[in-house]
Structures are given as structure tokens and as C-alpha cells.
């Protein structure tokens, strides 16, 4: 799906050497020299991961005026409610159009069926402003054209509801890639920035990727203090409040899993700021510094904002570093956050990396992270879960970052775990959150030392 993303991004990053910033050139060089230093194993076999439909579990809170209608099977409906159903909803924010035998046999017209369902839904929830038709494995295997359906519904519901389409299917997307696809669907609706030339100076900073509200507010205010006044976010808090994009837009990715969205925004003239991701003190400071550089903020001005943050962040991480230092860490693939987490835990918390697994490795978007990992770090792209668990058992790491399907079984084998999904649902970005992020990993180890049953 995005196999050529890296190549395209690299091209996008250096279409003209004149426009390439110093950091982009450095990145190119680093990428070439580093890749050899990080052994990469590519594995295939059973993958113990979520499909992209799971993104609905956090996107419905980020944009409360949106509704997510999955077109799929009972399995899809069951997945989402198993994940989100422990919360009790007075008003549903997502649902599934379950395909029946008539739909598969072609006896029912898919478009008529969708129209009927959407009408029922909007009668119940008239305040919905954006409706996402979310594709699934079954809808893609039988080649239902949801893009066309969305177009048609848009014309019918003009003015009332905007209808978008993206794929959250397991055959196409893994977990957080669902967000990438959802944002990608929103890109064409973003207004164009005023006509500017292709090498327009930076005029607006666009932070891409879901952030916790408080984290977002904090980062925007810090950028303001640095002198970057115009900062917008994608996704917005309200689905109709989409930021503009154009040649003056500078993209700062808050999340590493946004390959397709980043490319689409660049195709609309925006330029990507190369940086590590804002996890931990070092990553967050480098991330903000890269933005300041892109906006030509004087060094002294950004340093004045950053230095106290760095100082405070380090102090907050310190007690957790004492617990984590020297401990061996094994990360199983889940969200593509793994490289950034490994970098933070190794460099700032003193952990040793046994294996860093990721469901998908976008070399271009992770170049800055790879440059910060110690040479020799074993990367693993893809998964053969049983073989990977054999490696876990053989290595007996002090902490395994893994999904909830594996966490309790590993705990029962005496191996400490940190369930990875929590990292997508927690405010972990920015210097101010570095202590909290470290705490997520030190907590299971502290707990093991606390519990006594004799």
C-alpha cells in the first residue's frame, strides 16, 4: 500500500536542492549510513495486531460531531464493541452496516441499502456533521465502492452532513493506520491556503496526528511563546473545522504512523519538517526546535522557551530512570510508535533494547528516530507471533511491550509486560509529559515489587 512512500517522501523532501533545508540534507546522509547499522529482520506469519477499524475507538472522542459507520460483517461490529463497549454510551457514535446474505448474493442493491441505513441513522442522530463510511475486509473483498457511495450521499445530504470514506480493513491497515486513512480522507476537504509560490516562506504550522486536548493546548501555547503564532491541528476537535493547507504550510507530524496523510498534504504544497517524534524530553525538544528552525525563529528565542522545559522534563523522568535503568526491553509490533518509544527508553531511561518490533517501517518518516537508536539495535518489521514469542522467552527481558492478547499470558509466565494500546490513549507527547510517559513503563515494574502474598 505504502511501499513506495519512502521513495516518494525522499523525492518530496529533495525535489530541489536549493529548497532543501540543511536538516533534510543531513537526514539523507544519516539515513544512508544508519540503515546498515540497524539490523532489520522482516518476518511474516501470524500477526497479533488490531485492524484499522480500532482507530474509531479514539477518533470518535476527538471529533464528537462525527459518526463512524463501518460497512462490514458481524465480526467488525463485535470488534468495536468489544473494544469500546465497556463504556456505556447514551448516544452511539459508531455502528456497523452488517452485510447479509442478500447483499452478498447481489439481491439487494448496496447503494439503496446504504441510503436507507444512513437515513435511519441521521433520523436518530440529527446533530451528526460528518459521517465516515469505513471500509472493512468483507466490503473490500466483495469490492463495494464506498468512495462512490460517499460521493452520492454527499450530494443527497448537501449542507446537512458531509460523508467521507476510508478503509480500516485488516487486510489493508494495522491499528493506527486507520487514523492515517481517516485523515487522508479529510485532506481533500481542507481549504487551500491563499495562492502562494511553491517556495513560499513558512506561514502556518500544522500539527498532524491525534493529540490529547491538554497536550495540544500546551504545545500551541509553547509555539506561540517561541513566535509561531499560527498553529492548527489535524484532526481538528470538530470535524468541520478543517485547517487550510498550501505552500506556506509546514507539517509537523506528532505521530509516526501518518505516511499516507503526510504524502497527501505534501502533494497540496505543504512541506514536511523532519524531526524525531515528540516522545520524551529529547524527542520533544528536537521536534519543537525543528519547527522553530523551519519558521526561522532565532536560536536564542527558541532556546529561552525550551531550556526550562528540558530541565523540568529531565527532573520528572529521573525517578523512573532509576527503576528502568539497565532493564532489558522487548517491543512487539502494534502501532508504529515502537521506534520512538525505544529511542526514549534507551536514551533517556537507560534501558537496553533486545528487539524493536514494528508492524510497518516507513524509513523516511522514521529516519530521525533511526539515527538516534544505538548501532546494532535489532529491528523487526512484520510478525510471526509464535516465533517472536520464542525469542521473548529465550531472552527473558525485564519488560515486554505488547498487545492485550499477549500481556496476561506473558505475565503468567513470569514476564513483566506493558500493554501497548494504552500509549495511543494517553497524553504522552511533549517535554511536560516525559515523566508520565516514563511512568507508564516503570509502573508495571514498581507494581511487581509492591505485591506480596505471603
Amino acid at each position, binding site marked *: *500500500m505504502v511501499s513506495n512512500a519512502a521513495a516518494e517522501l525522499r523525492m518530496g523532501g529533495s525535489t530541489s536542492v536549493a529548497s532543501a533545508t540543511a536538516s533534510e540534507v543531513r537526514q539523507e546522509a544519516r539515513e544512508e549510513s544508519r540503515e546498515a547499522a540497524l539490523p532489520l529482520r522482516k518476518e511474516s506469519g*501470524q*500477526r*497479533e*495486531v*488490531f*485492524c*484499522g477499524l480500532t482507530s474509531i475507538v479514539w477518533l470518535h472522542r476527538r471529533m464528537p460531531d462525527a459518526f463512524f459507520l463501518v*460497512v462490514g*460483517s*458481524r*465480526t467488525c*461490529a*463485535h*470488534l468495536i*464493541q*468489544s*473494544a469500546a*463497549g*465497556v463504556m*456505556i*454510551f*447514551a*448516544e*452511539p457514535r*459508531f*455502528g*456497523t*452496516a*452488517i*452485510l*447479509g*446474505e442478500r*447483499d*452478498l448474493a447481489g439481491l*439487494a442493491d*448496496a447503494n439503496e441499502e*446504504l441510503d436507507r*441505513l444512513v437515513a*435511519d*441513522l441521521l433520523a*436518530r442522530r440529527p446533530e451528526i456533521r460528518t459521517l465516515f463510511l469505513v471500509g472493512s*475486509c*468483507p466490503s*473490500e*473483498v*466483495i469490492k463495494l465502492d464506498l468512495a462512490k457511495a460517499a460521493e452520492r450521499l454527499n450530494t443527497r445530504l448537501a449542507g446537512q452532513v458531509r460523508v467521507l470514506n476510508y478503509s480500516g*480493513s*485488516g*487486510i*489493508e491497515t494495522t491499528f493506527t493506520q486507520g487514523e492515517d486513512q481517516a485523515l487522508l480522507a479529510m485532506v481533500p476537504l481542507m481549504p487551500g491556503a491563499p495562492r502562494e509560490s511553491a517556495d513560499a516562506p513558512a506561514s502556518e504550522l500544522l500539527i498532524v496526528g491525534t493529540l490529547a486536548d491538554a497536550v495540544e493546548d500546551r504545545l500551541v501555547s509553547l509555539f506561540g511563546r517561541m513566535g509561531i503564532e499560527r498553529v492548527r491541528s489535524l484532526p481538528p476537535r470538530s470535524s468541520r473545522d478543517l485547517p487550510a493547507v498550501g505552500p506556506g504550510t509546514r507539517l509537523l507530524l506528532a505521530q509516526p504512523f501518518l505516511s499516507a496523510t503526510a504524502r497527501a498534504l505534501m502533494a497540496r504544497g505543504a512541506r514536511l519538517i523532519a524531526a524525531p517524534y515528540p516522545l520524551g524530553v529529547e524527542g520533544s525538544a528536537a521536534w519543537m526546535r525543528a519547527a522553530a528552525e523551519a519558521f526561522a525563529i532565532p536560536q536564542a528565542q527558541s532556546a529561552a522557551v525550551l531550556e526550562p522545559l528540558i530541565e523540568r522534563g529531565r527532573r520528572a523522568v529521573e525517578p523512573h530512570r532509576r527503576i528502568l535503568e539497565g532493564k532489558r526491553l522487548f517491543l512487539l509490533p502494534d502501532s508504529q510508535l515502537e521506534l520512538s518509544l525505544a529511542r526514549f527508553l534507551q536514551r533517556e531511561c537507560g534501558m537496553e533494547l533486545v528487539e524493536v518490533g514494528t508492524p510497518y517501517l516507513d524509513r523516511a518518516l522514521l529516519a530521525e528516530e533511526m539515527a538516534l537508536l544505538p548501532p546494532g539495535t535489532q529491528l523487526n518489521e512484520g510478525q510471526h507471533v*509464535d516465533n517472536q514469542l520464542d525469542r521473548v522467552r529465550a531472552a527473558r527481558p525485564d519488560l515486554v511491550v505488547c*498487545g*492485550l*492478547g*499477549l500481556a*496476561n*499470558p506473558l*505475565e*503468567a509466565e513470569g514476564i513483566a509486560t506493558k500493554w501497548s494500546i494504552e500509549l495511543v490513549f494517553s497524553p504522552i507527547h511533549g517535554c511536560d509529559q516525559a515523566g508520565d510517559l516514563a511512568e507508564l513503563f516503570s509502573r508495571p515494574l514498581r507494581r511487581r515489587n509492591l505485591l506480596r502474598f505471603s
Partner: protein
Amino acid sequence: MELTLWTYEGPPHVGALRIAASMQGVHYVLHAPQGDTYADLLFTMIERRDRRPPVTYTTFQARDLGGDTAELVKRTISEAVERFQPEALLVGESCTAELIQDQPGALAAGMDLGGIPMVSLDLPAYSKKENWGAAETFYQLVRQLLKDQLPAPGTPAPSPTRWREEGRRPRVNLLGPSLLGFRCRDDVREVSRLLGAEGIDVSVVAPLEARPGELLRIPTADANVCLYPEVAGPVCSWLERRFGQPVVRTVPIGVGATRAFLAELRQVLGMDEPVDTGEQAGTQPLQGGHELRSRLPWYSRSVDSTYLTGKRVFIFADATHAIAAARVASQELGFQVVGLGSYSRELAREVRAAARELGLEALITDDYLQVERAMAEAMPELVLGTQMERHSAKRLGIPCAVISAPLHVQDVPARHAPQMGWEGANELFDSWVHPLMMGLEEHLIGMFRHDFEFVEGHRSHLGGSPPGGSAPVGSQPAEVADSPQEEPAAPGSTTGPSWDPSGEAELAKIPFFVRGKVRRNTETYAREHGLARIDSEALYAAKAHFSA
């Protein structure tokens, strides 16, 4: 297509997973796309299991679809067999795999699996659901394992009283308990204890914790106890037909049902009725040492429970738990059952019969929205339902207790919490009464409505805020009020009667949990009597009319 906000059951392969994960020594190879491994969490998180469920998924991706997915299936099967060395293998597909038609069962049949029994599962994902999948899997597995023991046609059925001739205690199998069933873990413990006290041994419990080898002993029991018809109904009927084993079909949930269950067991096994010591369960308050009796009868008869009389309760669950709850609610707690329904179409007939006895029309549906509408229509004071009913009950501001799957993590508690037997009845009493307002609070809120803390709908023993806080006092949820399913207005009138301020003010004085019902009754009365405006007088007239 059907619009589904919440589904009562998963797809049928989740039912098959439940059988595999409940048992030991069984492995399941499931042809499914990447992402379908979410089902593992049902076991590791909701059931809090300490091991991975015994299932290997092919987890194909889009790029595999261009290639040879059949080859992927075969590779997965041989790897799984080699790694896990199961005593029996299940092979099947999920909904997406059903569309690409690789026939994994046929592929497995053509492979050398070292002679382990293999069951190829054919579970139509677009027409059947979880419980059906569980029942079908359990049935196919038992059939496959017992095929060498089948008695020749015309063999007389074994005598259910052969235990006497053989000079041993009677023994029965407990069939149906499984993971993700409702409180099965503790029900098994409770029923086993109950039977032990009656002098009856438990032979095989399955599928929960059983090994394939144990299933081979099923025919040696004197009878099968069908604890959960949704899962074990078909297999019990088959065993009855082919092995002549009688089936005990009463489900022992509630005091009366538990006694009926014991009576049926004794009758099936040809046991003598125990000598009646005049100490019938619950006819007198408990004194220590009677651990085999339930406290429910005394708790329910004690004066503290008088205010429960006639409380309106709406019940929706799987068939087994819905029918049992209706009996307990109406006969043992003195509630008035105002709605009864189930999503178990396979057992719809039984639910309809139970509803008829209560003068109700059963609601048989798997459409959550239809259940929500029926609930709003009935305006109950308590909802006994599934995890899904908690959503609608929250929306309508009605107290709710969960009595059946689908469940979530809070319904797999650490404490012993059966639904069956004497202790089960204790659990029912506590958990159903808990969400209701306590008696004294109910009285005082009815008397004094101007309090700054104990306001409308506040249930202080639950902490937190009043239920239905989002709905303005005395109003129904907008969607309910405007829904086309609203009772039709009287012929000839296009709009119903309207409330004038004095009527509204009077309505606001009605305790919140019956206010919905009073509003509806008063409007019905006004329509029947041709009143266009409802004032306070009309409300009192209606009150007298309906209590007459």
C-alpha cells in the same frame, strides 16, 4: 444490510473459539484476515485468562490475496499441529475467509495430521451467530469423537437406573458451560455442590476445562444436564437420540427452578424423593448450618422488601436467562414483569411461552434499537438485561442489572458469583435490588422535593449523580417522544393531547421512576376521554381510572 449499533452476539467463529478456548488439548486453526485476532482479548482480558486461546489465525493481508491463500492455510495448519500437538483440531474460517472460499476444512482433510481427530467447521457467518457457532462446534466435535462408540440402530437405551444395579452413585454430565458464557465458572461449582449433596456425582463437565479424551466418557453417565441450552441443546438432543441418554432440561436459576431441577433429576434417575422434614427451602428464616438453602426467600419476605412489590421490570437476555429471570422476578421478588424478550431466535418458542404466562407478547429480536424502543415504551423501573441494555437504560435513566451475555469485564468477578442454585439465588437478590432506590430514600424523596442534596432521581447509596441527569425533569428522551413507534393517536386526531402548566406541575410531583408511566397513562386517558388539554385534574382522574 442492517444497521447495528450494538450486536448481542459475535460471529459464529467466536462461538467456535469459545469451545476451543474453554477446553484443553483442542486447537483451532482459523482462516481469517489480519486483525481478527482481536478475539483473543475476549479471553485474555474479559475472561482474564492466563494463557493465549488455542487458536492460530492465518491473518492474511491484501498482498496475500493475489497469491496462494490456500497454501497459507496449509502452512498454518501444519505449523500449528507441529507446535501445539493438540489432541483434536478444529479448522474453520471467519467471515472474510468465507468470501474467498479456500475450503480450509477440505484442505486439512487432505493433509497428514498424524491421526489426530479433525473437525472441519462450516459456520455461515452471514446468516448465523455466536451461540449457534458454539452449539454447532460442540456438537460436531462430540459427534466426531464418539463416532466409534455409536450403538447399532435398534440397541435398547441403557436404563437410567443402572447405577442401582451397578451399586454406585448416579452420575451425570454437565453440558454447556463455556468461557464468555454468563457466570459459568461459578454455576458449575454451585451445581456440582448441589448434586453432591443429593448423592449424585458429576462425570464430565464440558466444554469448560474438558479434554477431548474426557468427551469419550460422555456416554457412561446416567443422564445429561443441559445447563446452557444455547450451547448444549443440539448435542444433548443428539446424545438422547443416538445413545439413549435422558436430558435434564430445567435450568436451576432461582429457588423454584432449582427445586424443579432437583425434582426432574430425581425423576430421570429414578431416585426416591428425599424425606420432607417440613424444612422446605425458605419457609423460615435461616439459622446457621443450612448452607444448602438460599437466603433469597427470607430476604424477599422480610418487610424491607415490601416496597419491591409491583416494581415494573423489563427483561431482555439470552433465552435461558430471560426465562429464568422472569420467573424469579414475578414469583420470588414480587416484581411486575412489563417486558420480556430475547435475542436467541433458536429458543424463541420457549420465550414466547414464558411471556404468555405473564400476559405479555415476547420480543424476539437482535435489533438493539427495537429493544430500546420497547424499553422506552414499557417505562420500567428496573431493566434486567445484557451489557447492551446498560446503554439504553443509561439513556432513559433507568436502573439496570446485567443477567446475561453479552457481558463485559465487570461481569467476570473475582468473587464466587453464580446465578444457579441456592447461592445463585442469593446473588440474584443482591444484584437486582442494588440498583433500585432504597426504601427510606424513596419515601422521603416522594415527600420532600425541595432538598438541596437528595434531589430528583438521586440514589445516594450508589454515589455519583442522579440517573438520567441529561434528560430534563418529566420529559421523555426526544427521540422516544418523536419516534413513529409512539402509540398511535386516537383515530381522527393528528396530535395527542397537550399538557397545560398545571398538569406539568402535577406530573413533576410524581416520583421520577414511575413518572414516565404516569405520563403515558394520563395521555391515554385523555385521548380516550376526548380531552385536548391535560391539567392537574385530568392527571388525578387518570390515576383513579387506572388504579380501579
